[in-house]
């Protein structure tokens, strides 16, 4: 069951403001391919502007990708999301739901919680009004909110509660895939933990698959099965969580880990500082996008873009680096 692939993304590319031929503009997602299994959590990490949100929204078909295929396996069979009209998409949408970063902005402040949670049911005209109400209440209770919340307005709830409403809302139509776009980064730690636990429990209970966008490696470490590292819209590394954190294959992954505040052996270690800043996504692309900041970059890196391929040392990991096979990045004591 768990190995059943429900999502398969191949060569996803999106340029904002591209011309008709799909050229020019801002390359936000560049040839991204990955798959997702049932009840699996795939995290997407990367710095701001690296295209995490964009990938999520492409899958939810909120953005039209310029190229690539998104295959979704639902109960009804296999569909290619990229080539569906809005009307065709509608039934599929029930199975793919989204959870947004800012619980404030993702709930219409003029609607009551009950209506907000019921909205997907109303849109798809599922069940009678009474059934809908029952479902809403039971879901709200499931995410830890009382039935009385139904009549409240978003501004009358705290941030954590609002995010729970968002979760309940996403779950009303029994989705199979939940795209979570930084669902906890606006929350305080104590609330964040509540929401993370909730997401985990729901996954087990309902067999959900998550695409989990985050820039907090701590959270990613906690929640994911696999992790995709993104840099300027390009996949740097795609590996299981354990592999990634134990032995990163890509220098950028290493750099991210090093920049994380963390404690080892009861002590906070000094973080390693990655020099330079993420370049603008409009930059002229030649060679590896990370070459400018990479301590291991060579002429080759400047010249030629590496392709994503299985890592020699651990074929379960894919990496886009010319030197991945040669470098040993498993410990942080690399020269930077």
């Amino acid at each position, binding site marked *: 069951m768990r190995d059943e692939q429900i999502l398969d993304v191949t060569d996803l590319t999106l340029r904002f403001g591209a011309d008709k031929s799909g050229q020019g503009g801002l390359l936000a997602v560049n040839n991204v391919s990955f798959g997702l299994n049932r009840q699996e959590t795939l995290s997407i990490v990367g710095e701001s502007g690296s295209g995490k949100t964009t990938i999520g*929204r492409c899958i939810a078909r909120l953005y039209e990708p310029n190229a690539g295929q998104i295959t979704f396996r639902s109960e009804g069979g296999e569909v290619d999301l990229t080539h569906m009209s*809005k009307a065709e998409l509608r039934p599929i*949408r029930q199975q793919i739901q989204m959870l947004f970063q800012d619980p404030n*902005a993702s709930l*219409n402040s003029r609607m009551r919680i009950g209506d907000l949670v019921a909205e997907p049911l109303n849109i*798809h005209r599922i069940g009678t009004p009474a059934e809908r109400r029952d479902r809403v209440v039971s879901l709200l209770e499931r995410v830890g909110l009382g039935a009385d919340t139904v009549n409240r307005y978003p501004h*009358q709830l705290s941030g954590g509660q609002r995010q729970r409403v968002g979760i309940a809302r996403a779950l009303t139509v029994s989705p199979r895939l939940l795209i979570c776009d930084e669902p906890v980064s606006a929350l305080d730690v104590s609330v964040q933990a509540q929401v993370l636990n909730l997401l985990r429990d729901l996954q087990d209970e309902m067999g959900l698959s998550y695409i989990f966008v985050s820039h907090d490696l701590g959270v990613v470490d906690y929640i994911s099965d696999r992790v995709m590292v993104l840099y300027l819209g390009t996949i740097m590394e795609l590996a299981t969580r354990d592999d990634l954190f134990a032995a990163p294959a890509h220098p950028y992954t290493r750099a991210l880990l090093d920049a994380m505040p963390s404690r080892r052996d009861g002590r906070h270690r000094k973080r390693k500082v990655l020099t330079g800043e993420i370049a603008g996504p409009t930059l002229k692309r030649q060679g590896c996008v990370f070459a400018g900041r990479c301590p291991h970059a060579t002429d080759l890196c400047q010249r030629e873009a590496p392709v994503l391929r299985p890592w020699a040392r651990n074929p379960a990991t894919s990496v886009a680096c010319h030197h991945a096979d040669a470098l040993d990045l498993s410990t942080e004591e690399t020269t930077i």
Partner: protein
Amino acid sequence: MTDTVSNTPATAAPAAEAPLAEHNYQLLSVRQLMWRKFLANRLAVLSALVLILLYLATIFAGFVAPYGPQNGKSRLSYAPPTPIQFCDDAGCSLRPFVHPVKAERSPVTFLLEFVADEEVREYIYFFERGDSYKVLGLVTSDLHLFGLRSDDARIALLGHDQRGRDLFSRIVYGGQVSLTVGLIGVLIMVMLGAVIGALSGYYGGWFDNFVQRFIETLRVFPEIPLWMALSAAIPPLWPPEWVYAGIVVVLAFLGWTGLAREVRGLTLSLKKRDFVMAAEASGASTGWIMRKHLIPNMLSHIIVTATLAVPVTILGESALSFLGIGVRPPMISWGLLLSDAFKVQVIALYPWMLFPAAFIFITVLAFNFLGDGLRDMVDPFS
């Protein structure tokens, strides 16, 4: 060992500080919040009341006005406001009364001079019968809020005009044009502006581009001259009702651009907001998103903009009528009434002819205050 630190000042927290009341506050719905915020703005509330009164008076103009709009007595040409008295030389009465006036032409100035006939009292009665009129164009009635029983004397709270008509009655009737021009004009404006703005914001592309250019162009035309130009082109032989409609359309035609821009901006920002994305991700159709998300969120802004557009439109109509290219007699509007006062000698000799200006001013001011109050109210969270 269990000494407490003694630096807690005496002013510090006594016990629970009425958390309950605060709790209630938190539970208010958006609408309640807005309502509260609105009520807190006293000028806006007052303005709303004034406007309600004015509109009521307009709807029931026939009832409120003691005389029909054309009912005049030439002998009372430019007779001043009738003083309402409770007392005179002959004593006092609980029922207010007026004295009839006699007019005589001065041999020097050739103007009429008015002398009150102190001997005669004409009492004012409420719910009197008088000129007949139609309520909302349907029911015929001749009941008036107040009036005199004899036709020898006339009551004119705000004086008489040149033809000896009661200015107050005319102002009340004039409100039917002046007050509705704003509302109807703005209604059309809202429809045009909101629809075009929302479409142009939602779909973007060439349509948006064209609409934006068009709006930009319309907006570089100074509005009053363009109004003037367009209303001057209204065929003079149209019946007054059509002319009125024409004026409304002209005013609305030029006014929608501001709203369209605003709505477009709002749509643009709303459509990127996560909750719209969320609805879209749930499979909501465009219509659904418009209905459930965009419009409710824009509505209050639209209302505010519309409210603030009403006074502009009212002023526009007044200016046009004042200049003689607005509504035409026998229709009455405040601007038209005011154009009768646009003569220095009229202001000098018959200053009450300026009363229509006071009504324009009060209405416009009230709408401005109301709009202001509504603007504050739109963002109940700020």
